[in-house]
């Protein structure tokens, strides 16, 4: 096989992305955990850990540009490069969302909390984190069906996010609790965006596999896409 160096480089980039996926997924888990368990140290850990994610992000971006300049990838390789670049960015943003959650916790860690809302957030986290894992797995296994699952997994996230508003509105009588509750809406929003980024990653993988780009969830045209896509 020719161009060994080039293909090894592509493989390495892919491994790095998969590694980043793990890191980001754990960061989200830790941030939510810090919030739920009231763990200050854990929150600090998440914020500090973002440096590693940013480093990986820059490394992947730089090396990807290098590959494009020096190796002129085409066809499947080109689509892979495109996916790597996009996913790199999405994962970095997911890392930022984890940091945002940790920072929100930090700013309200003194305030009283509502167990029900915390459980609500835990539920969101339990839906969103598998989305990251599934998107990365779809990438690793080049599995179109896994890609399509992301769309289904995103529905509960939207529902849960909308549900947050009602629950926080119910705290209206207690001002400091309400204050805390409003911040929790931010947290939910972060988690919902993590879900969106995961779906975006799955769309990218779909493009890699089919050569065509389809949006799985379009706010203006909700489409039920079956197995005939691509």
């Amino acid at each position, binding site marked *: 096989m020719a*161009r060994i160096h080039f293909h090894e480089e592509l493989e390495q980039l892919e491994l790095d992305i998969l590694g980043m996926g793990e890191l980001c997924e754990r960061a989200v888990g830790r941030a939510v955990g810090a919030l739920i368990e009231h763990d200050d140290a854990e929150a600090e850990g998440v914020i500090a850990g973002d440096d590693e994610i940013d480093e990986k992000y820059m490394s992947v971006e730089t090396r990807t540009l290098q590959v494009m300049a020096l190796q002129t990838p085409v066809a499947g390789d080109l689509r892979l490069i495109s996916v790597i670049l996009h996913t790199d960015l999405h994962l970095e943003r997911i890392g930022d969302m984890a940091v945002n959650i940790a920072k929100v916790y930090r700013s309200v860690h003194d305030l009283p909390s509502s167990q029900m809302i915390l459980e609500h957030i835990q539920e969101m986290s339990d839906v969103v984190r598998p989305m990251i894992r599934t998107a990365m797995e779809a990438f690793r296994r080049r599995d179109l069906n896994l890609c399509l699952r992301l769309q289904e997994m995103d529905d509960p996230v939207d529902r849960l996010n909308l549900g947050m508003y009602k629950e926080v509105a119910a705290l209206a009588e207690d001002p400091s609790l309400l204050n805390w509750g409003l911040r929790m809406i931010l947290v939910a929003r972060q988690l919902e965006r993590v879900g969106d980024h995961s779906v975006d990653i799955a769309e990218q993988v779909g493009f890699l596999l089919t050569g065509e780009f389809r949006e799985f969830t379009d706010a203006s045209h909700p489409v039920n896409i079956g197995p005939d896509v691509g």
Partner: protein
Amino acid sequence: MVSEETRVRVDVEALRRGGKGEDELGEPVFQLRDLEASYSGKTAVRGVTMDIPRNRITALIGPSGCGKSTLIRCLNRMNDLIPGAKVEGTALYHSQDLYDPAVDPVEVRRHIGMVFQKPNPFPKSIHENIAFGLRVNKMTDELGHRVERALRAAALWDEVKRDLKQNALALSGGQQQRLCIARAIAVEPDTILMDEPCSALDPIATARIEDLMGELKDRYSIVIVTHNMQQAARVSDRTAFLTAEADEAGHRSGLLVEYDRTDVIFTNPEDKRTEDYVTGRFG
């Protein structure tokens, strides 16, 4: 890569046209159906079915031995010059059979010009190089103007107008190749075939000729054989990928694998062999 259910249905009609749903192409210049060329009984290329559109650049790419040079030489009957060469199948040029016994290959070559891999100007003056073709085709009225027009169209006029009597071999490689293009254009063909026209040239000369090709395609249909994939990607509208493969009897010969719009070939080819070749995983 992609499972059967999710794969796009391959439209054979579109495949032949070299693209999905491009109806503004009009009548193709060449229509090849199951074209097969052989030398002394040994098949060089087979299974070529494609329409070559007019006023576009069509590239033939593939590894060595895939028959792309043989194929292009079939289009202007230059293959006839090789003893033992035989062509089977159909090759239509503007709906006329190129290989009909009544067809004069000499006349064919006036309408379908050719530029070769190594620039091959005649060992004469620049003027005579172009005038030769005009004379043998009895196009000698306003000879000087015709020569100038051809040199202008080949983007060579400004460089040589001072002295058309200088020997063509004194020109640089890139200039010689443009002279050969001018020579081909002078006899007013409607198609120009180019067999690896830039492989003997440096990158700057190559770039100039690629630019020239872009200008020429308004008036001519161009078919180019190239082993430089990036060049095919840069200049062509349609790309045909050929490869060398053994047939059922075990004889190795060239074969048309895929033919489509160039951007499709280089972003999302259908056939794995095409993918392997353009990404360099070949061999």
